[in-house]
């Protein structure tokens, strides 16, 4: 390879990098002006299934039980569905999730619907699979607060689970990591691919109303939503600080103040930050880079009709409030905004949407949701003793 050739390649790479920067930091208008468009909205395909955890009916069935089983939590009161309640959009309809008894969480609970498509779970993207997400949630101090030993012990004492596990995974006794696999398999069935938007994108021109079609124009143009909410999931899974204010409850709720400090302490920030932070640093916990302070992974817009309140801190009760927030350039109606203005995305700026435009946009966002997904909660199988009295008597005699 000649030196000239290398040089040319370098120039090409630099050009690509600069283009990338423009996409990352410039406005949609700039990007679109240069002919660089974000991926378009697209119909949602089938969810990706990891090669090391293939779906099977028995696995999904076990996962369905486990998802609703509070015995997968510290005091047997708090399972997945405790904070991901089907009747509440498979999330929790408060600003921040309810958390383990004696605690409250510090972020909003996210819906399970379509979680199968994310490659980064949790608001700060700290888990990269549903399997890992289930593990982290069941063990976290303000979530399930369960320890592996006791949860695994409980599984062994539920004969239906022992039998299901043996069929699926072939081990004599259930392992917790396999339980997480089963939960993930069940969650991969909780998808919604027949929304008005999907039907429209698949060719049904009647699927969106005139209002929604105008909203789509705004979404992809003037409002610039598509810059981050793009592709089939309506999420680019990148991290941004869009100016969302912190949890208001932190200012007046002692229990929430406890959790806020615990999270800083447990996730291991410096003493200075532990003493001074007053807002959730989000992706900073993962990267430890100052420029990631207050950034969160773009959430999907799918199923949001059922998942109020919105944002990682649950500060907006309605989609209208969300649109107003963006229209104001990332400032809430009460004037509050992020505690990390230095990292706020330049993509966020006042949009100048009229009232009618804002209504159209909300109408279009509603097209990301189909029918509410509700299922009958399974009747959970009971514990049963592993031994009979006669077996124990025989062991006693043999001592």
């Amino acid at each position, binding site marked *: 390879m000649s030196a000239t050739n290398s040089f040319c390649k370098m120039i090409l790479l630099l050009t690509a990098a600069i283009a990338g920067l423009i996409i990352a930091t410039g406005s949609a208008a700039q990007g679109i002006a240069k002919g660089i468009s974000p991926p378009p909205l697209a119909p949602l395909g089938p969810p990706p299934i990891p090669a090391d955890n293939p779906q099977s009916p028995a696995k999904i069935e076990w996962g369905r039980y486990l998802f609703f089983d509070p*015995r997968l*939590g*510290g*005091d*047997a*009161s708090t399972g997945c569905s405790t904070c991901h309640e089907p009747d509440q959009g498979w999330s929790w309809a408060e600003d921040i999730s309810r958390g*383990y*008894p*004696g*605690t409250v969480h510090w972020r909003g609970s996210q819906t399970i619907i379509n979680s199968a498509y994310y490659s980064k779970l949790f608001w700060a993207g700290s888990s990269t699979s549903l399997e890992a997400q289930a593990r982290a949630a069941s063990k976290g*101090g*303000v979530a399930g*607060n*369960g*320890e*592996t*030993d*006791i949860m*695994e*012990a*409980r599984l*062994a*004492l539920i004969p239906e689970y022992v039998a299901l596990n043996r069929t699926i995974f072939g081990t*004599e*006794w259930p392992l917790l990591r396999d339980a997480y696999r089963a939960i993930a398999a069940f969650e991969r069935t909780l998808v919604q691919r027949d929304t008005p938007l999907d039907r429209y994108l698949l060719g049904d021109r009647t699927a969106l109303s005139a209002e929604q079609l105008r909203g789509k124009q705004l979404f992809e143009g003037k409002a610039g939503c598509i810059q981050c909410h793009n592709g089939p999931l309506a999420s680019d899974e990148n991290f941004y600080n869009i100016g969302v204010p912190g949890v208001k409850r*932190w*200012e*007046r*709720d*002692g*229990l929430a*103040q*406890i*959790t*806020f*400090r*615990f999270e*800083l*302490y*447990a996730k291991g920030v410096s003493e200075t930050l*532990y*003493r*001074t*932070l*007053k807002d959730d640093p989000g992706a900073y916990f993962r990267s430890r880079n100052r420029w990631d302070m207050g950034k969160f992974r773009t959430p999907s817009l799918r199923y949001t009709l059922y998942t109020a309140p919105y944002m990682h801190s649950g500060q907006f009760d309605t989609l209208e409030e969300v649109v107003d927030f963006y229209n104001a350039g990332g400032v809430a109606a009460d004037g509050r905004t992020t505690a990390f203005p230095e990292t706020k995305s330049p993509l966020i700026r006042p949009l100048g949407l009229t009232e009618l435009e804002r209504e159209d946009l909300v109408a279009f966002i509603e097209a990301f949701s189909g029918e509410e997904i509700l299922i009958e909660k399974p009747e959970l199988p009971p*514990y*049963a*003793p*592993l*031994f009979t*009295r006669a*077996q*124990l*008597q025989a*062991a*006693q*005699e043999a*001592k």
Partner: protein
Amino acid sequence: MGVRITNRHHFLAVIMGTWLAFSAQATSVPDLGPLPPLQYNKTKAELGKRLFFDKRLSGNAGIACATCHDPTQGWTQNQPLSDGYPGNGHFRNAPTLINVAYKKVWNHDGRIGTSLDDMVREMITEDYIMNMDMRIMQERLKQDPRYLQMFRDAGYGEPSNGKVRQAIPEYLKSLTSRNAPFDAGTMSAAAKKGLQLFKGKAGCIQCHNGSLASDGRAHNTGVPENFDIFLNPENHQAFIAFALFQGIENQMNLKRDPGYYNVTMKQADMGKFITPSLRELKYTAPYMHNGMLATLEEVVAFYNAGGGKDRRKSPLLKPLGLSDDEQRDLVAFLLALSGDPLTTAEHVWQEPYPAEYATIEDWKHVRN
């Protein structure tokens, strides 16, 4: 580390047992006697007392140390097996905490032989006991202005996990036998006769010796298993969780409490348990590591019969041939080792705890 029975000790015990067969008197063990007074810092102990009775020291804020070590129940629970953490049961009897600060080894299986500091940590964090993430505990304490003041007054600075592990042991030093007839020299005639049997014909002093009436070592006395551990899945799950955590193999098939085996992983130590103190028995029924004996009369009858059935049973145990009167005298002596129940405000935190955590005002502008 604390006292550990080695093979050599075991061998010595066998020799001693053989020797005892020829001699009614054991002379080579420490005599019973009064407990030496314990010095402690009253301000730190007062903080420890508030912590001990505070349910916010458990994961779901549902139980306190005092839930399973209840002053009104002899600082234990008057039931065979401890309650354990909500959602599960337990597989052992909660020991009284009176005189706990004198011990050199803790837990019926002797798995902690370092300090009460470590013991407190074990009780607070174990998933089947208090299931507390101590980082959450620390932040809870910092939310309570009363604790902020008490930690400062104690010279501990800001509330922290480490200081909780110091303050509770400081408080536990205040829980010591008081006015036991044995110590006060006010034993009845029957109790005095019982003491002679204790040291002589009954041979109790072979293991129950020194001022605690415990040698702090592990012995297999053949106490029958408590089947409720295995027939009640809530108890059994605590047992399995314990075995998983401790690395005890074959835990799904285990039908007995391995006891001191947990420490040494030697089959010879299967079913051995640390000799408990005999002080304060008056309040602490039922007895034995698994609460299988309901009364002191049953305990004495159990030893009179030479203990229970176990091929690894200590050779120190053999039928004693005690008459009914002798057994009664022995019980009278055992009761003479119990003093005041320590149920007044001196030992029991009696003020209510706040129903909700206080809000830190002007939160955005004060340091965390």
